[in-house]
């Protein structure tokens, strides 16, 4: 069995699977259940100043695709709506009862030194392992000058991070919003402010759907809707990219990353870790299925690591980063062609019509009815992969490398590029 223990940014946990700051971590009752189920850590749902905020009903919207519920999910819920002292007392008790688990506390107070100093001191008294500065919440709190309103201004990110680092001995995680043009700006600001880690992504600004009878965005609150924060499996590709952008940025080197965004399985987690996440945080997955999904996340990651010969998380941490390059560094001479396995083909014709209508007219059809044959016209195939994606049969269409005898050449070296140089590197 592999060793799943994590130790990054000054926080230890028995496994890399934490629960993100959200409803599942709003109170001791839930956190207790999560730890019993096996979760390695939690980021307690964001604390703010008293009096607590007030939430609306309803709060959630969801996207279902072909009967698969909650492929995408959004919420208009705010930070904790419970009194600060109640949360602090529960955090203290939880940390005392579960010393081996990571307990971080998410925080959000106005952009002034005094409130941060006050709340950091209070959290430190609980024995929590660290804090996560919520600079990401995109709805409600941002209208009050907090959350994403801070995260979208790198100067504020750096300033508040620096305050916090100077005010507490606890590790400081900075939670970033994806609702920015370039994620590196707030990430570098967090680094400059002394952050021990960034946590990303927070939710994406979204309107989940429009109720065509009510003529209002959903979820509706008394006939009106507000934009919310989008999460769930649908946002994973966005999160992976933003995590990787930071992980490979030399200016951000040395700052840990807690990956968040659509993680529901061990495989999702493994992908985040290969792109530089030191650990991961989960929310929508447990809100959909309950805490028990941790069983397969741990077991699946273990089995995969055993199969690959990885003894610990660090053995594959960041392993995909060297292969995450800019487009211009891709080998333009690499060539693929689609191969249709006629024994597996079920004659649905989706490859043909996709290529015929929308791509390169490279898949022919001969015969009619159930006996028809679809085949690649090699001379027309550009190896784009569309047919393999639309094909409903696993491994029926394979993209086969063509041995064209050509050496590696990227766009910066390509004579077809007017800015190419023989040595590579575009002349600008």
């Amino acid at each position, binding site marked *: 069995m592999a060793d799943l223990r994590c130790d990054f940014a000054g926080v230890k946990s028995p496994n890399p699977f934490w629960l993100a700051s959200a409803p599942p971590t709003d109170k001791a009752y839930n956190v207790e259940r999560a730890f019993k189920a096996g979760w390695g850590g939690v980021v307690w749902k964001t604390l703010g100043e008293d009096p607590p905020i007030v939430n609306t009903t309803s709060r959630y919207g969801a996207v279902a695709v*072909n009967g698969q519920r909650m492929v995408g999910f959004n919420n208009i819920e705010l930070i904790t709506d419970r009194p600060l002292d109640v949360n602090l007392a529960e955090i203290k008790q939880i940390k005392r009862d579960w010393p081996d688990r990571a307990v971080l506390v998410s925080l959000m107070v106005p952009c002034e030194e005094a409130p941060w100093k006050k709340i950091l001191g209070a959290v430190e008294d609980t024995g929590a392992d660290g804090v996560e500065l919520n600079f990401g919440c995109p709805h409600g709190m941002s209208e009050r000058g907090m959350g994403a309103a801070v995260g979208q201004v790198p100067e504020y990110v750096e300033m508040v991070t620096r305050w916090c680092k100077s005010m507490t001995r606890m590790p400081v995680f900075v939670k970033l919003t994806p609702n920015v043009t370039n994620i590196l700006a707030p990430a570098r600001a967090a680094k400059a402010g002394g952050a021990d880690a960034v946590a990303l992504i927070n939710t994406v600004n979204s309107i989940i759907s429009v109720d065509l009878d009510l003529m209002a965005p959903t979820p509706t609150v008394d006939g009106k809707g507000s934009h919310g924060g989008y999460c769930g499996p649908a946002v994973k590709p966005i999160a992976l990219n933003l995590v990787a952008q930071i992980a490979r940025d030399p200016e951000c080197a040395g700052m840990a990353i807690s990956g968040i965004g659509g993680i529901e399985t061990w495989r999702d987690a493994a992908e985040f870790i290969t792109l530089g996440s030191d650990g991961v945080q989960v929310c929508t997955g447990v809100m959909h299925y309950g805490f028990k999904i941790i069983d397969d996340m741990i077991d699946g990651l273990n089995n995969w690591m055993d199969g690959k010969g990885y003894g610990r998380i660090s053995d594959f941490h960041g392993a995909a980063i060297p292969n995450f390059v800019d487009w211009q560094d891709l080998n333009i001479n690499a060539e693929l062609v689609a191969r249709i396995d006629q024994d*597996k083909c*079920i*004659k649905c014709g*989706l490859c043909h019509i996709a290529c015929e209508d929308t791509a390169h007219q490279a898949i022919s*059809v001969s015969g*009619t009815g159930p006996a028809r044959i679809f085949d690649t016209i090699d001379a027309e195939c550009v190896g784009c992969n569309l047919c393999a994606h639309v094909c409903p049969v696993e491994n029926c269409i394979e993209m086969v490398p063509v041995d064209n005898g050509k050496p590696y050449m990227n766009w910066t070296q390509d004579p077809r590029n007017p800015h190419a140089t023989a040595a590579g590197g575009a002349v600008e």
Partner: protein
Amino acid sequence: MTDGADIQAGRLNGAVLAENFADVHRPFDAAGAAVEASRCYFCYDAPCIGACPTGIDIPGFIRAIATGNLTGAARTILEENIMGGSCARVCPTEILCQGDCVRNGVGDRPVEIGLLQRHATDHLGGGGPHPFNRADDTGRSVAVVGAGPAGLACAHALARQGASVTVFEGRAKPGGLNEYGIAAYKVPDDFAQDEVAFITAIGGIEMRYGQALGRDLTLAQLRNDFDAVFLGLGQGGVRALDVPGAELDGVHNAVDYIADLRQADDLTTLPVGRRIVVIGGGNTAIDIAVQTKRLGAEDVTMVYRRGPEQMGATGHEQAFAQTNGVRIKHWLRPVRLEGEGGVRAAVFQGVELAADGALVDTGGEQAMPCDMVFKAVGQSFVPLAADGPDLTAGRIAVDESGRTSLSDVWAGGDCVAGEDLTVQAVQDGKVAAGAIADYLKNMGS
């Protein structure tokens, strides 16, 4: 044989019978239909379309279901098959559309096209506006003989194009086999009559009941009174079982008993034997076997003189019968029916296929004690009077448009050669309607 046959009504109470004869297929709810619809790959030039005798754009209507466009889905179906509702219930989809679903190719199960079609057509069956409009009256008149699927499909298509159609039906109610022949649990809740009402709501269709060709009407008179005639006649004849004892009490034609069952107001009043023997291997045999079992018969045996592969009933239907507790015995030929007054036993002789393909006796008889015997060995077309159209192989000869040897007479459905399926009858009626409409257009005034 000292004791009498055990035939009695009310073997099961009304509540159990109501359950036994309720809808055999649980319809989809909206969420279930959406999920099933999403299983459709939306194939290019989909094979299922070619496997449907009426050529419904199946991926098109399924996609419409998936998007919540149920009105569009229903219209897509009904455009090609105005009896899409009954076909969704009675089609042997496993040998038609679903049989050619590409999902079969990956060890998967096919998309439930029949149930999805039902979901869509039921949506329009709720008394909403008719999906099609009738063209202006052309002043042309057509007589349709027979208010079964072929006649109704033809009448609807012609009325839609502005012809005035008079439908002559020999029985008291329209619907043909949908009303009198299909197993009750496939079309419960008076579905056949609701569908006829839906079809005739297009306007321009006059229904006349108790008007049978050869009894109340002559073809010559119809040809004289109307611009064109469509014959959508059923198979009125029942093949005889040529064995001693076939005249005994308790020996019935399956189709007659099923018609009685379909028309019974109260199934607790329908007498049924304790032990039943059904002779035959087609869908009618399955239907009588299962329905008598569901009426409360204790022991029902279907006997067929060949093997399961040769049965007219599909594998799906055979399995359905067996699931209902019907025993199916193969390679047995009826020899005689025994009893005094009432039948008490059916006697069979074992047979096998000889090298030349002929059935030969294997020797030895076996008697099956029974209280009722149902003959389900096939139906036949009863030819018309001498002034009728030419026949071929015992049925009306037609060209590809359904036109008979008489220039103003078309025919379709069970009275012409081809698959004896509701969906084929609908297609026959539709195709003939197209040809008749052209004919009417080109007529001099």
